[in-house]
C-alpha cells in the first residue's frame, strides 16, 4: 500500500473515531445510515448469473471458466500457457483432491489411458476416494478454528471434539449440499434434535477457545464475540468483529448489527453430552450394565458416602470465590435462575461439582485410604463392566426464553446500551429477524432463522464466499484474494463475473461442492503449465489473470502425509479420536498433556487425525504454518524459515522416514544402484530421473558413499534402511538413506506444480 493511501486511511481512522459516534438505525429510522456507495458495493448485490463472454481463441474454451479467463487475458494481450504435462497434471490433481501423491501404479495407469476422458475419470476417482474428505475437511477446519482443547492456561482436552472433524470429512465425501452443511452447523440441534449427526455439526460453534476464571460474565461475552466473529467470517466473508466496539470503519456494518447477529447465539451453551445412541441401544446397554451395577451397588454406595461431604465442602468453598451476585445465582433453585444465571451455573459445574477423580484428590487420611480400598474392590468386578455410551459435543439452548442482548459501548462488558433483537446486517436486511420457535422444541428457534437466511439462495454473500474458498484452494489464491473479507478492506475480485457465474452454478447444482471441483479442474485454466514466462510475468506479475498455474508449497499436513506415503509408512485408517505421535526429544510436555499413542501405527496416521492441542500444536505441522486455531483462518501464511530447514534436515523423525523410504526402495529395486535411484525418483516425484538427474544422483551416491565408508571404518554408527535386508552392504544402505532423505527434503518434493 502506498504511503499516501496509508496516511489517508489513518486520517480516516482518526476522523472516524472522532465523528462516527454509534449510529443506531432505530434511533432515526428516516435517515439511511449507509451511503449510496455502500449500498451499491458489489458484494451486497444479488448474484445474477452473468452471460458467458465470447473470446477469439474459442478452441481453448473447455467450459465457462475458460471463457471468462480468456476474455480478460485477450483484453490484456497476454497469452495462455500450454497444458501441463500429464505427470504434472496427475500430481496436481492428486495432491489437490486427496492430499497424497499418486502411487507409481496410478502413474502408469494414467499414462496408459489415452482416452479423451482420462482426466475426467481421474477426477471422478479422486472425488470418490475416502481420502478426499480428509484433504478438504482440513480447509474447513481452519475456518472453523477447530481444536481438541480449550487453550488458555490449562488447555483442557475436549474429548469428543474429533467427532466434528469426522462429521466434516463425511459431509465432504458425501458431497452434502452446502446449504444443508450450513444449516446443520448453525442449528442442527433445532432442525433435527434426534439426529446425532446434525447435533455434532453444531460443534462449529463449540470450538471457541475457553478458560476458567472468576470473571465469568466477561468470559461469556468473549465466547459470544468469538462465535459472532467466526460465523461472520466463515459464512458471510465479513469482518464483523470490527464492529464489536464501534460501527465498522470501512464496511457498512453498524455496531448494532454486530450485536443483532450475536443475539442469535445469546441462548446457547456448550453441550458435551450429546446422546449418540438410539433409545434401543441405550436400553440394551442398560441391561448389560445391570449386572455390574448390582454386583457393585454396596461398594458404590460407600464410595458416595465418602465423597458426599467433600463434595459439599468443595461446593461451599468454591461458591464463595465468586462475586456476590453470582453467589446468589448459584444458591438459587434452578427454576428461579435467569437464563444467563443458568449459563453461569452450567459453565462452572467443573468447579462447583467436580468429577469423582478430582473429588477423590481432595480426600485425606483415612477416608482417602478407604476410598482406595473401595476402588480396588470395584476393580474386581471389571469383567462385568460395560463402558458408558459414547457422547458427542456441540451446543444447545437453555430454554425458550433467551436473555436480552444489548449493544456494549466500546465492546465493554458493563457498558450496556440499548437492547437489540436478533437480526442480520442491516445493509442486507434491516429490521428484526422473524423467529418462529418450533413447537415442542426446547430451543428459541433463533438459529433456525439465521441458518435459513445464511443458506438462502437470495443471500448475496454465501455462495460467492464458498465458491471463492474452493477456487482459492485449487489455485493457491482466490478470485477474491481475501477469502474471509469481501468488504472494502478486502481485495476486489479479479474476475467478478466469473465469481458470480460460479456462485450461480453452485446454487443451481443444489449447492454441490464436488460440482465446483469438477468445473474448475476440467477447465483449461486449471490445466495450464506452471512454467514461468517473462512476457506474461512483466504484464501480470501476480498472475491475477491466471496466465499459468502458479506453483506453490504444499501445506504442512500434505508434506507430512506425503513423506509417510512415500516411505511406505502411512496408515490409512479413517476417523476416530486424535492420535499422539512422538514429540521431538526434550520437547516440553504441553499443558493439557500429550500421552504418546501406544500403537506405533497411530504415529503414521494422516495429519488430520493428529490431536490438535490448541496451545501446543504438533511441531512438524506447526513449523509449516498450521494455523493457531485461536480464530478463524481463511488463508494460511506460507513462510520459509530456518526452523523448517532444521526440522526436515536434522530431526530424528524425518531421518526415520528416509530410512523407511530407503528400505522400501531396496525391496522394490534390489541391490542395483541404478534401479534404486530410478525407483526412489518414481516414488518421490512420480517420474523416473532424466539423464541429468541420473548423473547427479549417481555422482552423489559415489561421492557420498566414500564419506559413509570412512565413518564405517571408524566404527561410527550409521543410519540404515528400515528394514535392512540381508546381504545389502550397510555402507550402500546408509548412502541410499541419505539420498532418499534429500529427495524428501527437496523442493520438487514439497512444491506443487
Amino acid at each position: 500500500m502506498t504511503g499516501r493511501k496509508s496516511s489517508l486511511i489513518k486520517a480516516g481512522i482518526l476522523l472516524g473515531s472522532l465523528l462516527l459516534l454509534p449510529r443506531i438505525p432505530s434511533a432515526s429510522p428516516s435517515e439511511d445510515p449507509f451511503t449510496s456507495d455502500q449500498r451499491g458495493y458489489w458484494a451486497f448485490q444479488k448474484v445474477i448469473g452473468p452471460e458467458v463472454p465470447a473470446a477469439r481463441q474459442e478452441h481453448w474454451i473447455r467450459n465457462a471458466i475458460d471463457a471468462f479467463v480468456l476474455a480478460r487475458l485477450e483484453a490484456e494481450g497476454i497469452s495462455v500457457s500450454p497444458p501441463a504435462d500429464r505427470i504434472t497434471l496427475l500430481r496436481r490433481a492428486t495432491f489437490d483432491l486427496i492430499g497424497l501423491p499418486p502411487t507409481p501404479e496410478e502413474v502408469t495407469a494414467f499414462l496408459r489411458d489415452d482416452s479423451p476422458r482420462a482426466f475426467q475419470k481421474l477426477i471422478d476417482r479422486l472425488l470418490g476416494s475416502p481420502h478426499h474428505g480428509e484433504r478438504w475437511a482440513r480447509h474447513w477446519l481452519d475456518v472453523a478454528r477447530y481444536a481438541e482443547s480449550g487453550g488458555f492456561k490449562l488447555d483442557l482436552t475436549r474429548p469428543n471434539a474429533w467427532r466434528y472433524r469426522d462429521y466434516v470429512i463425511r459431509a465432504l465425501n458425501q458431497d452434502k449440499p452446502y446449504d444443508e452443511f450450513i444449516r446443520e452447523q448453525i442449528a442442527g440441534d433445532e432442525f433435527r434434535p434426534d439426529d446425532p449427526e446434525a447435533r455434532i455439526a453444531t460443534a462449529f460453534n463449540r470450538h471457541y477457545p475457553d478458560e476458567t476464571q472468576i470473571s465469568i460474565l466477561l468470559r461469556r461475552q468473549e465466547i459470544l464475540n468469538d462465535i459472532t466473529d467466526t460465523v461472520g467470517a466463515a459464512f458471510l466473508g465479513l469482518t464483523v468483529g470490527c464492529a464489536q466496539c464501534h460501527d465498522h470503519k470501512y464496511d457498512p456494518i453498524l455496531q448494532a448489527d454486530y450485536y443483532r447477529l450475536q443475539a442469535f447465539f445469546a441462548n446457547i451453551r456448550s453441550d458435551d453430552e450429546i446422546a449418540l445412541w438410539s433409545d434401543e441401544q441405550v436400553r440394551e446397554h442398560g441391561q448389560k450394565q445391570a449386572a455390574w451395577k448390582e454386583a457393585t451397588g454396596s461398594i458404590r454406595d460407600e464410595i458416595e458416602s465418602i465423597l458426599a461431604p467433600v463434595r459439599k465442602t468443595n461446593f461451599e468453598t468454591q461458591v464463595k470465590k465468586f462475586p456476590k451476585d453470582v453467589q446468589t445465582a448459584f444458591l438459587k433453585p434452578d427454576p428461579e435462575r435467569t437464563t444467563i444465571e443458568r449459563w453461569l451455573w452450567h459453565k462452572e459445574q467443573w468447579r462447583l461439582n467436580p468429577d469423582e477423580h478430582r473429588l477423590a484428590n481432595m480426600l485425606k487420611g483415612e477416608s482417602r485410604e478407604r476410598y482406595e480400598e473401595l476402588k480396588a474392590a470395584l476393580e474386581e468386578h471389571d469383567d462385568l463392566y460395560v463402558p458408558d455410551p459414547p457422547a458427542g459435543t456441540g451446543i444447545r439452548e437453555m430454554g425458550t426464553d433467551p436473555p436480552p442482548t444489548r449493544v456494549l459501548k466500546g465492546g465493554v462488558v458493563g457498558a450496556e446500551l440499548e437492547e437489540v433483537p436478533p437480526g442480520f446486517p442491516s445493509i442486507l436486511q434491516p429490521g428484526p429477524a422473524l423467529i418462529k420457535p418450533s413447537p415442542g422444541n426446547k430451543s428459541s428457534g433463533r438459529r433456525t432463522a439465521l441458518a435459513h437466511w445464511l443458506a438462502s439462495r437470495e443471500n448475496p454473500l454465501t455462495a460467492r464466499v464458498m465458491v471463492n474458498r474452493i477456487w482459492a484452494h485449487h489455485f493457491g489464491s482466490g478470485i477474491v484474494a481475501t477469502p474471509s473479507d469481501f468488504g472494502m478492506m478486502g481485495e476486489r475480485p479479479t474476475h467478478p463475473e466469473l465469481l458470480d457465474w460460479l456462485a450461480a452454478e453452485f446454487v443451481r447444482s443444489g449447492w454441490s461442492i464436488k460440482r465446483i471441483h469438477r468445473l474448475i479442474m476440467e477447465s483449461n485454466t486449471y490445466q495450464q503449465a506452471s512454467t514461468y514466462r517473462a512476457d506474461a510475468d512483466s504484464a501480470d506479475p501476480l498472475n491475477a489473470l491466471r496466465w499459468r498455474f502458479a506453483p506453490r508449497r504444499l501445506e504442512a499436513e500434505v508434506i507430512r502425509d506425503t513423506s509417510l506415503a512415500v516411505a511406505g509408512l502411512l496408515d490409512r485408517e479413517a476417523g476416530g479420536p486424535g492420535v499422539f505421535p512422538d514429540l521431538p526429544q526434550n520437547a516440553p510436555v504441553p499443558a493439557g498433556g500429550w500421552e504418546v499413542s501406544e500403537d506405533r501405527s497411530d504415529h503414521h496416521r494422516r495429519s488430520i487425525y493428529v490431536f490438535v492441542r490448541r496451545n501446543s500444536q504438533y511441531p512438524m505441522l506447526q513449523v509449516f504454518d498450521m494455523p493457531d486455531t485461536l480464530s478463524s483462518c481463511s488463508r494460511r501464511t506460507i513462510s520459509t524459515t530456518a526452523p523448517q530447514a532444521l526440522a526436515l534436515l536434522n530431526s530424528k523423525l524425518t531421518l526415520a522416514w528416509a530410512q523407511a523410504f530407503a528400505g522400501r526402495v531396496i525391496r522394490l529395486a534390489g541391490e542395483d544402484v541404478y534401479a534404486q535411484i530410478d525407483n526412489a525418483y518414481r516414488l518421490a516425484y512420480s517420474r523416473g530421473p532424466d539423464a541429468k538427474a541420473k548423473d547427479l544422483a549417481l555422482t552423489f551416491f559415489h561421492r557420498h558413499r566414500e564419506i559413509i565408508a570412512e565413518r564405517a571404518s571408524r566404527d561410527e554408527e550409521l543410519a540404515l534402511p528400515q528394514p535392512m535386508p540381508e546381504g545389502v552392504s550397510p555402507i550402500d544402505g546408509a548412502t541410499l538413506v541419505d539420498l532418499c532423505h534429500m529427495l524428501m527434503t527437496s523442493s520438487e518434493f514439497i512444491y506443487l506444480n
Partner: protein
Amino acid sequence: MRTDRSSSPPQPCSRRAFLNSAGRNLGVVALGYLLQRDGLLPAASRPAGRAEDPLTAKIPHHAPTAKSVIWLFMEGGPSHIDLFDPKPELDRLAGQVMPESFGRVTSAMGTEGNPLMPSTRKWRQYGDSGTWISDLYPSLPHHVDELAVIRSCWADHLNHVNAVWQMNTGSTLAGRPAMGSWITYGLGSANQDLPTFVVLADDRPVNGGANNWSAGFLPATYQGTAFRQQGPPILHLSPPGTIGEKQQSSKLSFLTELDQLYAADKYNDEIAARVRSYELAFRMQTAAPEAVDLSKESEATKTLYGMDDELSAKLGSNCLLARRLVERGVRFVEVYCGSGSGWDAHTKLDVNHEKMCAISDRPIAGLLSDLKARGLLDQTLVVWGGEFGRTPFTQNEMGRDHNPWGFTMWMTGGGVKGGQVVGTTDAIGLRAIDRPCHVHDIHATVLHLLGLNHTNLTYLHNGRAERPTINAGAVIRDLI
C-alpha cells in the same frame, strides 16, 4: 503503511543467478563456502541476488536511541509495595479493612475485604535522585541514578495467564503478536545467524506458553525462539548422531543441486528463499552454540552476574546470555525470572520475595554493570517488571493478592532518562492515580526508543490495519 506484501517483479532464474540470489545480504554464502571448503561444490561468483528477505534490516520511523531490548520479566507479580513504592499510610491503616474512599475492586481471590497489611521491609532513599528501594534489593541501588522507576503502571487482567499475555502482546487474549515479533517485523534482523527475538525461560514453563512469543497474525518468520535450557538451544540444531559433519555437508550439497535442477526451468522466488533458509539453518548450527557458550567468560564476569551462588546462578547465566545475544545483534531478549508464577506471593510474601530477590538481585545489577562497562547500556533498553503488582490488603498468612490497578516497573539504558520516578499510586498503593501508564503506554514507549511509531507500525489482518498497541497507548514522554 508497512505490510509484507511482496510485489517486486520476479525474473527468470538461471542456475547461477538462482544460487546467488540465495545468498543476498548474508555477507558470505556460508553454505557455499563450507561446501567449497569441503571440496563439494565448485566456486561460485559473489552473491548478488534479489529475492526478498523478510528479515532484511529496515529503516526505522525515526532515529532510535536503543538498538536492543532486554526485558526482565518477573513472572507472578512482584509486590511494588515491598520493593519500590513505600506506603507509610499502610502502617497507619494496618489491620483495618480498606476504606471505601479507595473505591471498590474485585480481586482474583476475593480478598478485597481483608485487612490492609503494611510492608515489613526496611526502606532507604538512594543516589542523587533519592529513589526509594527496599532492602529486598541490596545491589540494585548501585544503579539507582540510571533507573526510571514507573510507579503508576496498570493492566487489564487479574489472572496470571491473561496478564502475562497482555504484558507481552498487548492483549489479554491469546493470538496477537508479541512485542518482540512486532519489533522484528518493524526493524528486521541485525544478525541473521541468530534468531532476532529470543526468550530465556526459567526451569518452569512460562504461564500461557508459546502464545507469549508467538508472531500471532504476523508471518511466522517473526516469532520468538525460546532457547532450550539444556543441550543445544534450538530444536533440531544438529543432526542425529548417526550423521557426521562431512556427511551433512555432502547431503546439503546434493540438496542444493537437486533444487537447482528443479528451479532451472522455472522462476520461483520461494525456492530461492528456501535455499536461503537452509543456509541460515546451517549457519545457526555454528552461531547459536557459540552464542550460548559461556565457557569463555571470565570467572570475574560470572561472579558479577551471581553465578557463584546456587540461588542466583540460573538467572545470572541467563542475564549473561542476554548480554552475549544483544552484543551479537539480537533485537529482543526476554529473560524470565520465576517463570510459572515464581513471584506469586499469596502467602508469606516476605519468604517468597526474599528468595526471588536473592535470585534476581545480583544477576540484574551485574547485567547493568556489565552492559555499562562494555558501552552497551546506551543502546540497550532494559525493562524490569511483572505482569502486575500486589494488593495492599492481605491474603492468607501475610500474603498479597494480584494487583493490576497499580504497580511498578522500571526502565534503564537505551535513551531512557534515568534517576527519576514517574507517576504515583494512591496512599495505599492500590491504584495508579498520577500519570497512569497502561501496558500499551509501556509498549508504545519501548517501540519509540527503538525508532518505531506505534501507530504507524501496522499490519493488515482480517480487514484491519493492526497495531502493536491495538487501539490505544501513548509514549510516556517523561521517560525520554
